[in-house]
């Protein structure tokens, strides 16, 4: 058997039982590699369950800087007998299967093309600890120590990290270091180490940080000046408001009075959450909510009202797979269409697609400027993969010179200078009209907010011409919006090509990696990352420039492709789909495979749409 050999370039996956504290140990492992200067991309694949079901944690380590899922597993750390049969099958030929050999391995599971390494985790724990909870917790730390020896890691990095992580809880430092040593020692004295895959310190991390997108969004809301947050708990969006609250408690307390310069209301449901955001924004505060698919559905009516009544609204949608009894803890990009055209009547909503934590922070803060400038809902579309996993990211930055763009709002003095105020009167020709906040002026500027049954002066009317005129103005505003939303990013191939990739959000990293694989296959492609809807003119030009464009996305129905076809009236020939919707992040190998199958001259018949099965590899 040929064993896999690699330095600083591999995929390791941990199979654990949910609720046993494994995530923090696995995170310790990933963070240690990060501190050694290695780009890492940890992904927590967890069930909708508090305790007992299988859970996985996959870490991509790549000195080359690939941060997406590659596909395949080189090292499996199997700590959950329940999922063992499936886990051992996933290991690449020549890879490593590490398991708890306190109990012997079921002979039927043994593979001859995989290195099988036993660690007596349960036995060590039972010898060392009396308390069952300690036995469970430290088992995880012990295998991290063991991995340090197997992979030839710098042990000091681990011990220092433990010291940092338990700052303020010093009592926990020594027991954790002891557990790490137990694993390390066992391997050193009983097993052949290191294995074929090793790590060594590198310098590929620079000043980057390791942060989850939801925390970045919460911080973005703090920096963006949000004062009102209304929400209803739903995975995977809950930690957005948690982060907002955590930082607000530190950074938003009035120094003089101790009072809070923010209000967080846990609403009775998502309808109410959205209503609160609209009420607060109508009244001149910056407000936001965070939700996921089912919540987005519930917010739909209000999103229509905000669109028609032109009320700034900020919504962070952390997408997940399907319904509440679908795979609520798995990732997808499957709310694109329902968000883009959310609500009744003719509505079009502005979407932002961040791809990194830094972009979550930047776009999160910018959402408030955009919402107020454009007077319409801004729906930021992130997903579970970006939101809940630690992602390596450029550091966050705030320009202290920057001022909030509060949009077109009239003060009492402004109103005094105006003959007659019209809330929906397009005076500047950009189809964006002037707002007034309640309470501004004793005599002028008050109006009755309603959907569309009003004229430019907000006076009640049901005349069809007024309705039409208003709808035309909203369409003209849509054109204005294109100038404000973030522009796409383009990557050009060194060789001229008529083929391109188009992707958004978390499909970026795997797509970029797939581009390199395709280049090795002799297929050169340009690429565009779309960052917003409405699509800017650059997107249209890019599509016209290419013969075929592969639209890469993480849903079944090719939702962004549908949006492109609808907005640009393009036929299906030009736009091909690369899809993954099994709930795991799309992998580079999967993308490559689907593209190869659809390239002209390829001898495999392309899969028909309905048969393209998301392949997590």
């Amino acid at each position, binding site marked *: 058997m040929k064993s896999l050999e690699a330095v600083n370039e591999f995929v390791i996956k941990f199979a654990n039982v949910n609720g046993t504290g494994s995530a923090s140990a696995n995170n310790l492992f990933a963070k240690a590699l990060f501190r050694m200067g290695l780009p890492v991309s940890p992904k927590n694949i967890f069930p909708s369950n508090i305790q007992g079901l299988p859970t996985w944690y996959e870490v991509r380590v790549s000195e080359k800087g690939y941060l997406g899922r590659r596909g395949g597993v080189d090292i499996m750390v199997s700590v959950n007998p329940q999922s063992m049969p499936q886990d051992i099958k996933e290991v690449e030929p020549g890879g490593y299967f590490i398991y708890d050999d306190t109990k012997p391995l079921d002979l039927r599971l043994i593979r001859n093309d995989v290195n099988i390494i036993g660690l007596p985790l349960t036995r060590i724990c039972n010898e060392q600890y009396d308390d069952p909870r300690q036995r469970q917790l430290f088992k995880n730390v012990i295998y991290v120590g063991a991995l340090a020896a197997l992979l030839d890691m710098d042990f000091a990095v681990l011990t220092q990290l433990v010291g940092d992580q338990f700052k303020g809880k010093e009592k926990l430092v020594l027991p954790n270091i002891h557990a790490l040593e137990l694993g390390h020692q066992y391997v050193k004295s009983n097993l052949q180490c290191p294995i074929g895959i090793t790590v060594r310190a590198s310098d590929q991390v620079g000043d980057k940080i390791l942060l989850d997108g939801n925390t970045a969004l919460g911080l973005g809301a703090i920096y963006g000046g949000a004062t009102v947050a209304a929400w209803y708990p739903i995975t995977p969006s809950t930690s957005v408001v948690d982060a907002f609250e955590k930082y607000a408690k530190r950074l938003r307390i009035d120094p003089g009075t101790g009072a809070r310069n923010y209000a967080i209301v846990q609403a009775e449901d998502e309808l109410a959450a959205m209503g609160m955001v609209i009420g607060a924004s109508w009244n001149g505060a910056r407000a936001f909510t965070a939700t996921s698919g089912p919540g987005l559905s519930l917010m739909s009516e209000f999103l229509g009202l905000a669109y028609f009544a032109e009320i700034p609204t900020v919504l962070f949608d952390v997408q997940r797979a399907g319904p509440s009894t679908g795979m609520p803890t798995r990732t997808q990009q499957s709310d694109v269409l329902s968000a883009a055209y959310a609500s009744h009547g003719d509505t079009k909503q502005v979407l932002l697609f961040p791809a990194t934590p830094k972009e979550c922070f930047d776009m999160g803060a910018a959402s408030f400027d955009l919402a107020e400038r454009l007077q319409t809902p801004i729906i930021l579309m992130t997903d579970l993969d970006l939101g809940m996993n630690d992602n390596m990211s450029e550091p966050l930055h705030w320009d202290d010179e920057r001022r909030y763009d509060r949009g077109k709002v009239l003060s009492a003095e402004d109103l005094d200078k105006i003959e007659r105020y019209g809330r929906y009167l397009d005076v500047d020709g950009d189809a964006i009209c002037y707002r007034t906040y*309640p309470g501004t002026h004793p005599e002028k500027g*008050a109006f009755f907010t309603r959907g569309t049954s009003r004229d430019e002066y907000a006076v009640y009317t049901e005349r069809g011409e007024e309705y039409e005129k208003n709808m035309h103005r909203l369409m003209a505003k849509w054109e204005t919006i294109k100038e404000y939303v973030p522009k796409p990013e383009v990557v050009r191939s060194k060789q001229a090509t008529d083929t391109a990739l188009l992707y958004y959000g978390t499909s970026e990293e795997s797509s970029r990696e797939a581009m390199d694989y395709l280049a090795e296959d002799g297929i050169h492609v340009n690429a565009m990352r779309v960052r917003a809807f409405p699509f800017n003119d650059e997107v249209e030009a890019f599509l016209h420039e290419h013969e075929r464009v592969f639209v890469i996305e993480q849903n079944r129905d090719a939702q962004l492709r549908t949006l492109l076809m609808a907005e640009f009236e393009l036929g299906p020939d030009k736009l091909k789909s690369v899809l993954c919707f099994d709930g795991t992040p799309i992998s580079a190998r999967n993308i490559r495979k689907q593209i190869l199958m659809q390239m002209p001259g390829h001898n495999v018949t392309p899969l028909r749409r309905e048969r393209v099965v998301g392949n997590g590899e």
Partner: protein
Amino acid sequence: MSYQVPKFRHPELPRNELGYTRADYEGSISTLCAGCGHDSISGSIVRACHELSLEPHKIAKLSGIGCSSKSPTYFLGKSHGFNSVHGRMPSVVTGAAMANRDLLYLGVSGDGDTASIGMGQFTHAIRRNLNMVYIVMNNGCYGLTKGQDSATADEGSASKKGDPNPFGAIDLPGLALQLGATFVARSFSGDKEQLVPLIKAAMSHRGFALIDVVSPCVTFNNNTASTKSYEFVREHAAATGTVDFVPMREEITTSYPPGQSQEVTMHDGSVLHLHKLSEELDPFCRSSAMMALERYRSSGQILTGLIYMDKDSRDLHEVLETSRRPLNTLAEEDLCPGDKVLQNINASLR
């Protein structure tokens, strides 16, 4: 069609402390059916605000959907208003109130808007003790969709269509009491003498103030078999007592014989006089209020007046400990921690 109120007014109309006449508190001409109870309630709102010398632009009026929810167009033309979506006005008010605690929030809803589609939001606004006045214009039917029974229609009551309602009614004051509401009143659109002081008291209350106003729908539910008709309500209303409201700045001139009257100082300094109180009700005791409501209900009468009030109510802002300064007045220097703090956060993420 759109209407604007003609601006000409009689110069002799009485002016309040701010120099405003009642006309300054009016809105556009109503497009509701002639005789609709909702219009009388609008009139009482105008009178209460005028008499309280409220600055019209410091009031925000919000509503859901229905004939009742249209009525904010017909009063307080100088106030910002918001005709939101069906049953969801409470959430919009919650957000608005969080943004600016210094305005007076007047919510207007119907029985369909509140007791059916909006039941969830109604109950949670009560539970949070949101600082607002919540007026239900209660006609026992869905006026705007042409007269279907609502959830407040009494069992056996029949609208113009004629079929007796087979379901029991949801009693909004009873429900509000049970949910911990801090101000609960009921009145009748046709009884301005009772309704105006109740609205004033509600506006001075800190916390959630519910006034359930029986308001006949002349077009669909004012027939003899209806228990929400003018005639039925006039015959079956029983008042808890009389309420007089004396704003903070006014001298108290009326006096009542001792024993029959109670005085309450509201948190804004105004004074509420309750007199000729029914002996069966202590309006400061929740269980007494609940029992009185039930007693009258079972004897087929409609108890009106101030039913319950909690004098020490704490509103949502107090619970959340939000800043005294309205959140919508805070600027970058209050809100944005700056790059230095962010660089420390970056450092903790390496």
